């Protein structure tokens, strides 16, 4: 991969200023079996690079799929032209940032590589799990799938920086829709949020090889279930809803580029103000949130970010107090607020911006039984299926696929269309108990949208279940 690229890059460097090249190659393979029919297997090979130049206070980039000497020379010229055109017109004098020249590499630890199992065997495996979803005539639609990616990145700087990463990812899913008349209910394994780094060894611990009949049974249960009740009550969220709650109402509000206003035309701003860092009580004492790109199996782990900054675990919120922003080196310089190594681009076609990597809730001490036992009247919800939040990341409403009533410390009947709403700035203060390691799931999302031009980012969230008090809960029509 990238043979001779370093030398070709050296040959086309501009005479002055900072210059970097981020070259990427990604291979994707997707196997999907729907209603026992193999869908067309999708393969993609994507190769290209982005040249970034900061010179004279201006900034410019050029992305090209031509990594030949001529292609790189052209990209450098185009990036240089933009740096020149923007000099004196930028939000910030980019020459004030000392960009790192990293040295190092990172590769996902893999025990069972994707390619070590023949394609025919992987198809058979997927077909088998798909077939196990069809447990009843009322299962109207059912699908099993595996999405594999391998991404290789080489980051070079004009002053000799060189960082490499090779990331192996697997995204397995199972889905069943039960239908009767015009009522339909769908269950997805772990909310379709099983996003992991690693190889095929991921499949067993996440339940892909065992949970198909359970998914189907729960979809059928929902068909006959009453709507979730309406009222203010305790709310127990399983990990496959917690990941989304953290993502939307902690991850995004802490992104420094939002706080700086870059996203106000698209993804939005933040209710978090610059002066909040260091003092603002974000949640109860039980709330400990980390930026942790070092969890090997988590979806967004890496050694260096796309500006070459070394990645490390850091507390964003400690015992409920806001400590640090999700801000990259450039955003930190602009805002004067401490951040993390989270300058990330979704591909060679886009420039890096402030992004979540793995934003995780540290586990507490309650088992699932203890979490349930702590509820007098409430609802247990799992598997996110609806998410909506305002542009300041404050007023939210989320929905789940599956709910159960909790009465006097015991799980009771199944309820459908469980939804809840709240306000980020106060919601986390109602955090009453945090689940222990036995309730933790390693989850994530492959499709977090943000940025102009738009970028679809892979993010990870490692989280336990958690219990909240006095939440506004409701059901469907």
């Amino acid at each position: 991969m990238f043979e001779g690229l370093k030398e070709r890059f050296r040959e086309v460097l501009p005479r002055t200023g900072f210059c970097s090249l981020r070259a990427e190659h990604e291979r994707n393979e997707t196997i999907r079996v729907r209603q026992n029919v193999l869908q067309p297997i999708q393969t993609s090979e994507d190769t290209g690079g982005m040249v970034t130049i900061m010179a004279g206070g201006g900034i410019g980039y050029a992305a090209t799929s031509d990594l030949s000497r001529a292609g790189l020379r052209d990209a450098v010229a185009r990036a240089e032209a933009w740096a020149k055109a923007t000099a004196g017109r930028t939000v910030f004098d980019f020459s004030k940032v000392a960009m790192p020249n990293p040295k190092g590499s990172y590769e996902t630890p893999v025990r069972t590589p994707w390619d070590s199992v023949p394609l025919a065997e992987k198809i058979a495996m997927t077909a088998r799990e798909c077939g196990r979803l069809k447990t009843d005539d009322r299962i109207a639609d059912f699908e099993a799938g595996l999405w594999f990616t391998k991404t290789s990145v080489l980051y070079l700087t004009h002053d000799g920086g060189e960082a490499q990463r090779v990331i192996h990812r697997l995204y397995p899913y199972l889905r069943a829709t039960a239908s009767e008349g015009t009522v339909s209910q769908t269950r997805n394994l772990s909310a379709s949020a099983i996003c992991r780094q690693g190889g095929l060894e991921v499949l067993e611990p996440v339940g892909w090889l065992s949970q198909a009949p359970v998914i189907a049974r729960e979809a059928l249960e929902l068909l006959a279930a009453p709507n979730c009740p309406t009222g203010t009550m305790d709310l127990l969220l399983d990990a496959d809803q917690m990941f989304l709650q953290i993502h939307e109402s902690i991850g995004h509000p802490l992104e420094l580029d939002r706080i700086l206003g870059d996203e106000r035309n698209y993804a939005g701003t933040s209710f978090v103000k610059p002066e909040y860092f260091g003092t603002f009580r974000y949640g109860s004492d039980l709330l400990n949130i980390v930026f942790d790109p070092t969890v090997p199996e988590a979806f967004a782990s890496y050694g260096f970010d796309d500006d070459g900054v070394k990645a490390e675990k850091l507390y964003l919120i400690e015992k409920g107090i806001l400590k640090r922003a999700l801000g990259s080196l450039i955003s930190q310089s602009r805002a004067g607020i401490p951040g993390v190594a989270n300058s990330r681009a979704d591909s060679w076609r886009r420039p890096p911006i402030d992004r979540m990597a793995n934003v995780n809730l540290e586990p507490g001490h309650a088992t699932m039984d203890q979490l349930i036992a702590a509820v007098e009247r409430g609802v247990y919800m799992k598997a996110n299926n609806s998410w909506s939040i305002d542009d300041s990341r404050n007023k939210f409403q989320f929905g789940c696929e599956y709910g159960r009533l909790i009465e006097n410390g015991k799980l009771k009947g199944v309820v459908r269309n469980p939804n809840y709403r709240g306000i980020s700035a106060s919601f986390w203060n109602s955090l009453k108990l945090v689940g222990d390691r036995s309730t933790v799931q390693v989850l994530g999302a492959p499709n977090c949208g943000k940025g102009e031009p738009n970028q679809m980012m892979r993010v990870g969230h490692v989280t336990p279940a958690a219990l909240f008090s006095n939440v506004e809960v409701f059901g469907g029509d």
Partner: protein
Amino acid sequence: MQEHFRQIADHAFSQLQGDEVALLTFDGEESEFVRFNKNAVRQAGAVTQRDLGIDLIRGQHHAEAQVSLSGDLAQDRARVEGMTDELRRRLDVVPEDPHLLYATEVHSTERIGSDELAPPETALAAILKGGQGKDSVGIHAQGPIHRGFANSLGQRNWYTSYTFNLEWCFYEHGDKAVKSDYAGFKWDAAALQRKMEEAARQLAILQREPKTITRGKYRVYLAPRALNEVVGMLGWNGFGLKAQRAKISPLLRLVEGEAKMHAGVTLSENTAQGVSPNFDRRGFVKPDAVVMIEGGRFRDPLISPRSAKEFGVPTNAAESYEAPNSLDMAAGDVALDQVLAKLGTGVYINNLWYLNYSDRPACRMTGMTRFATFWVESGTIVAPLNVMRFDESAYRMLGDNLLGLTREREMLLSSSTYGGREVASARLPGALVADFAFTL
């Protein structure tokens, strides 16, 4: 890029063996992007990309791949040969695909727009000049977008458009902003200036003390951009045959005749009057229009070739995701200049944001107001409104509670750039709605 695709296609087809058939698609663009905040540049740059799709077919066996092209003929021929070899090996492993369908009648088309774009530096200067003294934030994108199709049966289709799309906000304070856009094919600095001056005038209202309303039901006006968010949600698995047969369509009750919308609601996929290419990725040419909802009742679904084969019906050349690319909602009879008077007292909503379903079978959705949303009393705008969450069924919004649609419609060009610049549009009126539920 057209010539490069032609040469690559010729080479790919020359490598076919026996009775193999190949379908090729091409997605390319040469884009310039400028992102700005506080009327200064945050990021600026150029993106050139070329992606080739290959579907290698032998009987009912087939295998698909996508590969990025460099633009260098020798390199790209090698990439295509390598990928074709891999797909050929895969044909021996995969079973027959019972739902494979592709066009076998040759129907070549070509649509190439003219380049009337300004140099990107000229656009940048005009944007910064118009935003002088204001807190201006947004994105400008411009350049040619290319789409192509070729198959080994002899069909060739090509589409090139030269477009620009500027989307920006003037911020007054906090989250109070006027959102505007200027998009099209021919850059006109004077037209941009007029739009920026109009946006600046609207800012004045945002200086007033904002009003916060309590949760409850209100009379509202959804401007075309806000209505597009609602109708766009219906496009998420609503109109496609596959989603309907799989029972996951949020419009299932409408499709089954259990529910209906207002008799004034007519929605079409109007390819003839949109900006999207008129050919799909399997070589079928799209009909001028597909009427999905007519007079409040469901009429025809969007049907991809794959769904057509699966369910034994003719295709209307919808893409695999079976969602509109050229949405067209019929106009009503409310004059735009009468909207405030007819609204009376209520909420004038320019933009909605972050919609999702809260009860999919009931087609009930939630979302937020955003940007310039106003409180109106007795037909006069009184104050900007602090953001509110709604939770409301489309069957009510576009059914019994729909008071009227405007006579005038707006053509909205997509500004989506995920993976590449999207070529899609929506033409809609505004809607007056009663008893619209705000919840938080």
